[in-house]
């Protein structure tokens, strides 16, 4: 028996705001979260642009032992998960007695690893590292920490798939619940923002150097885009079986109806039309809907010349030119491992509040973006169904389709 899968909680710790209410306001107003970080200049970055989130103070919420194994990904993830838990009406007492899992997207812990290695280089003695670093250093830092804090008893893992990590995390949680293997999974994506996290990516020359006005630098689909802007934080999306949500009598924010995925099997960093096309069509086939049933596409579009062109072509091939499209990365920058989860949360906020967030900085189309319906300004619109794309290095593609819940 297959189970319907619904979303019962979202939480955000984003450069657009430290909770969903602030983020909602930013999305409505087309507010950018991008800043110029002088320390990147001194460090040797080509581009000093980044999304910014402050390091949260977890002392009021967590004990020393709970905090000591956390660096940015886990700290940010705790904040977004704390908010999502409250919305989904989940607490430790309930989680300890039931089977709830966690699958979180994360693909680096560079800041934590470098801090640890610096300590060893200085002290020449691994016994002086301390007990927390190993739990900060491992890529599964988010699920290790959160499963311990929340006493989770179900599936417990991280998912690494480059910039599609957060989206695949939700997709895999969806499949487990759909098949009846889990009642509930805490999904999400986390992304560190420290100086060390993005240096090698900057070295590829893929970041925007339009630094005079940081808020104008991320311009997906615009003819004059010159690269992406890195960003980070965390997003949590709590999903559960419809039966479980109804039994717990919690508000249902949306229903996941399709998860498409594919691998390009091609170049390690270049996007690929065929891979994206297959991912989109697989999601639509699984959802068993016609492309015309999709009211909004939240594009992966990161503001790189080749990436946005390929996605515009894939969207046009599958949907034609009518469906409204925007890339929230125009405001957030590229939240990388977090993006697939945060963009589901951003789109859910739009669906709940009947609007499409603008693709800011879209002034002039290029040949391919001119063929699709990019929304450059806030637009009031009912959304019954949306699709969110996420694509990553290594040619990993993910497309999720979410519908308004109708009993």
């Amino acid at each position, binding site marked *: 028996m297959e189970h319907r899968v619904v979303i019962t909680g979202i939480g955000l710790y984003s450069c657009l705001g430290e909770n969903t209410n602030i983020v909602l306001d930013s999305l409505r107003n087309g507010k950018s979260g991008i800043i110029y970080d002088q320390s990147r200049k001194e460090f040797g970055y080509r581009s000093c642009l980044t999304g910014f989130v402050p390091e949260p103070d977890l002392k009021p919420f967590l004990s*020393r*032992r709970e905090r000591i194994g956390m660096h940015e990904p886990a700290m940010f993830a705790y904040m977004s998960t704390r908010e999502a838990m409250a919305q989904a009406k989940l607490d430790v007492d309930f989680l300890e007695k039931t089977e709830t899992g966690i699958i979180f997207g994360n693909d680096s812990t560079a800041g934590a690893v470098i801090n640890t290695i610096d300590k060893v280089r200085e002290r020449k*003695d691994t*016994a*002086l*590292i*301390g*007990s*927390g670093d190993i739990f900060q250093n491992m890529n599964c830092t988010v699920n290790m920490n959160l499963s311990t804090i929340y006493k989770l008893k179900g599936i417990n893992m991280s998912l690494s798939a480059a910039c599609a990590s957060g989206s695949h995390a939700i997709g895999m949680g969806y499949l487990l619940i759909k098949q009846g293997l889990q009642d509930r999974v805490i999904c999400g994506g986390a992304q560190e923002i420290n100086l060390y996290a993005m240096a090698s990516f900057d070295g590829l020359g893929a970041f925007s150097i339009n630094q005079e006005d940081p808020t104008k630098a991320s311009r997906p689909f615009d003819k004059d885009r010159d690269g992406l802007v890195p960003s980070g934080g965390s997003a949590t999306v709590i999903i559960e079986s419809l039966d479980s949500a109804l039994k717990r009598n919690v508000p249902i924010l949306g229903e996941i109806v399709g998860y498409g995925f594919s691998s390009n099997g091609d170049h390690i960093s270049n996007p690929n039309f065929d891979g994206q096309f297959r991912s989109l069509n697989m999601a639509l086939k699984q959802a068993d809907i016609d492309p015309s049933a999709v009211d909004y596409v939240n594009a992966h579009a990161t503001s790189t010349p080749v990436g946005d062109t390929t996605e515009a072509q894939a969207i046009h091939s599958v949907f034609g030119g009518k469906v409204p499209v925007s890339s929230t990365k125009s405001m957030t920058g590229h939240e990388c491992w977090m993006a697939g989860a945060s963009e589901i949360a951003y789109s859910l906020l739009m669906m709940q509040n009947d609007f499409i967030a603008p693709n800011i900085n879209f002034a002039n189309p290029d040949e391919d973006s001119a063929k699709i319906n990019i929304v450059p300004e806030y637009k009031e619109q009912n959304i019954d169904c949306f699709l969110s794309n996420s694509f990553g290095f290594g040619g990993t593609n993910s497309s999720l389709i979410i519908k308004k819940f109708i009993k």
Partner: protein
Amino acid sequence: MNRAEIIETTKRFLSEEFEVDIVAIQAESNMHKTLDLDSLDYVDLVVVIEENLGFKPTSDDFKSVQTFNEFYDLAEHKLAMA
């Protein structure tokens, strides 16, 4: 560092690191129980002792020490030997 300085320094860094009330750190109190140490905490205890008092205790040292007073004795001895 004399004994009074060892006591003052130890109280400060232990209360900060392990988030215990400084008044709970009494000479005859059991150090392991007062600080509520688990197996991982001993790793951190070595680090803060080395950083603040300048010596690196062994696991045998921790076994031989029960009260804070015994720890101050150990610290005095280690620093005198250094």
